[in-house]
């Protein structure tokens, strides 16, 4: 993974000193809260319902064991013993004292981490998929370009006060596991016939109040132009994006207002002015950064391990876990392992304790190369595990409640922290997640349902990505009472789509029953091996609507 050089170290250290001074000036009253607000946001500090929250950047979701231990130290020393992993591969600490933030940032800096631009109207953490560099279906490792983009966008003085937040994701796999189409800029990296790296640039995606998938504005952009092209997009946005209304300020609104073609022309015109200058990337710089992402020293081992095979046959629980929670690795004999942070009712999605972090850090060193990834679905990944070690690893993970075999299943819920923490939320999303996980805790049933994503957001800001869940749940406040609107048919990845509302919203306690009815409709209509989302696409939402709101009718149809 990327190692800081003297410049990187100096930059984060100087930044800590700067923020320490700003916090002191805020505490002395020299800075007003209004003046301090964007400064603290750009250092990852939010003011939530009960306390400050600190969001730490995990660039493209990659952590070393030592970094994860540092996060455990923060969880224990400055928070209540746990952290919350987010859909953008970051981690949030929910109970932070403002006075202590500079010390936390110092600790992060010592471990080559920071919280710069994890909030605010600026370019946020660059994300990619959790299996970057190891996935069986990957074309090119996207991490070097993600790191180059991270550096370029960090404290870029022209673009720190954009109209609104700005999210960039890059992916290079068959299945897009980084939700790139829901980003302000989505980059898809691929090769031409000569093996040169090219980028497809998609702009104007985003969830929130107005969910829109981004659209392509440039195909086959040679990688050397990555920074200048992104610069052109940001400059057009900074100049022309709306600033009069917070809810119309994302770049997606500008793209829609101009039309994607006119917007693309504007970007091209700007890009022509800067394209061949000093900001064009060099092969040397790519090589310098890519050097840190070289493949580790994999053992040459057989694809099939007899012991592993024996355990699969002997222990059905292990076999189910392997089937659900491991992914193919490009190197024979290895797997990537997903650690579920969704054990069910016992912990909110994405929450990991300091003890769990330490154990995971140790396991990553014992069985892997000391590296951990954070997945968009808020789970953790150990990217490089020998198949022959899977059984021992599974046992260790079970002891930490991190081996629930539900990856990709209904209870692998994505959820925002909701009204229990967030001051923006209009409803509490976590109790709904818990109620659903409680109701559907039968693993055989979950496996029979198959691949099904369920995403919950506590308000229209859509941090839980409900629009792109196969089942999406959105919390809305009606006269002080919590209601939950259900959408179906959303999807991320190559076949991204925005879910459709099935009808009137439910009270919190009615949600599990409504989900149950949706599932009944699916089970009665599905064809062999057909996923939930495919059934929705094939038959439309009408039968689901009927099944949920007029149960008797649905039953009648199902029995015919």
């Amino acid at each position: 993974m990327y190692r800081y050089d003297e410049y990187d170290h100096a930059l984060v250290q100087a930044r800590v000193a700067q923020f320490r001074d700003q916090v002191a000036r805020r505490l002395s009253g020299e800075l007003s809260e209004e003046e301090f607000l964007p400064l603290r946001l750009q250092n990852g500090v939010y003011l939530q319902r009960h306390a400050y929250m600190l969001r730490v950047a995990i660039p493209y979701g990659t952590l070393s064991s030592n970094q994860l231990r540092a996060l455990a130290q923060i969880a224990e020393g400055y928070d209540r013993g746990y952290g919350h992993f987010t859909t953008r591969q970051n981690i949030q600490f929910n109970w932070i004292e403002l006075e202590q933030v500079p010390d936390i940032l110092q600790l992060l800096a010592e471990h080559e981490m920071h919280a710069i631009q994890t909030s605010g109207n600026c370019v946020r953490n660059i994300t990619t998929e959790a299996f970057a560099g190891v996935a069986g279906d990957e074309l090119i490792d996207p991490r070097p370009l993600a790191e180059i983009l991270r550096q370029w966008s960090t404290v870029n003085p022209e673009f720190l006060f954009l109209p609104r937040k700005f999210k960039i994701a890059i992916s290079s796999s068959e299945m897009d596991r980084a939700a790139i189409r829901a980003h302000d800029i989505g980059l898809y990296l691929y090769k031409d016939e000569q093996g040169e790296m090219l980028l497809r640039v998609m702009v104007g995606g985003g969830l929130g109040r107005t969910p829109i998938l981004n659209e392509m504005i440039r195909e086959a952009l040679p990688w050397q132009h990555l920074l200048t092209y992104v610069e052109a997009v940001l400059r057009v946005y900074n100049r022309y994006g709306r600033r009069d209304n917070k809810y119309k300020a994302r770049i997606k609104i500008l793209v829609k207002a101009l039309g994607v073609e006119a917007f693309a022309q504007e970007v091209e015109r700007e890009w022509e002015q800067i394209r061949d200058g000093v900001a064009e990337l060099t092969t040397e710089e790519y090589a310098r950064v890519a050097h840190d992402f070289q493949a580790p020293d994999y053992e040459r081992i057989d694809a099939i391990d007899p012991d592993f095979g024996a355990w699969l046959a002997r222990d059905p629980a292990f076999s189910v876990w392997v089937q659900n929670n491991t992914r193919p690795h490009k190197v024979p004999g290895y797997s990537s392992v997903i650690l579920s942070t969704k054990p069910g009712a016992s912990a909110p999605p994405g929450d990991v304790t300091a003890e769990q972090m330490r154990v995971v850090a140790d396991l990553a060193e014992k069985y892997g190369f000391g590296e951990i990834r954070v997945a968009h679905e808020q789970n953790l990944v150990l990217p490089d595990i020998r198949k022959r070690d899977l059984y021992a690893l599974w046992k260790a993970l079970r002891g930490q409640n991190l081996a629930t075999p539900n990856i990709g299943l209904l209870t692998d819920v994505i959820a925002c922290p909701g009204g229990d923490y967030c001051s923006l939320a209009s409803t509490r999303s976590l109790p709904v997640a818990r109620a659903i996980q409680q109701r559907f805790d039968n693993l055989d049933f979950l496996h029979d349902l198959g691949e099904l994503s369920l995403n919950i957001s506590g308000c229209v800001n859509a941090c839980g990505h409900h629009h792109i869940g196969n089942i999406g749940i959105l919390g809305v406040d009606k006269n002080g009472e919590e209601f939950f609107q259900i959408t179906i048919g959303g999807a991320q990845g190559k076949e991204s789509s925005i879910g459709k509302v099935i009808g009137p919203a439910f009270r919190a306690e009615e949600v599990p029953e409504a989900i149950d009815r949706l599932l009944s409709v699916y089970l009665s209509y599905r064809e062999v091996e057909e996923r939930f989302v495919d059934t929705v696409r094939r038959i439309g939402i009408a039968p689901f609507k009927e099944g949920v709101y007029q149960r008797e009718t649905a039953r009648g149809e199902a029995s015919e």
Partner: protein
Amino acid sequence: MNNMIGLIYGVAHVLPEDPWCLVDDDQPLDSISSPIISYVRWQALRETSEGDELSCGVRLGPDDDPETVAPWLDTLPLIALEFPSFRDGRAYTQANLLRTRYGYKGDLRATGDVLRDQLGLMRHCGFSSFAVREDKSVTEALKGLFGFDMIYARSATSPEPLFRRRGLKS
């Protein structure tokens, strides 16, 4: 203008006696030696007077395209850009374009909601003088130009991005 900071040979100083003065369109110019006027007024003056405009600075609003003043940059001693709020970042782009694309060499002044913690960013984007908000201490604000200043990307003041310079160290 009061509460001014300026760069003198690249080093920031408080400017106790700044001659410039922001002048509204309906305000007479008679008694003002160094007025900063709107682009519209400046154009009118240029067409009717014989060189009076040469002693005037021009101010651009956040929506104005800096390209409109590009033909006259050699004759403009000062351009003032406005931050209607310190959270409004349009003037960073305007400043950067004036310096790097249109080659403006004169004084580029930040006006409006100009605060200590953004001065370093403004300098990177090419601003050379800073009219700090009236209710703030200019000596305190000056500290904003001595401190954290590192960037990776290029800027008006460091035209080469860090990756071009990284390779050069021996």
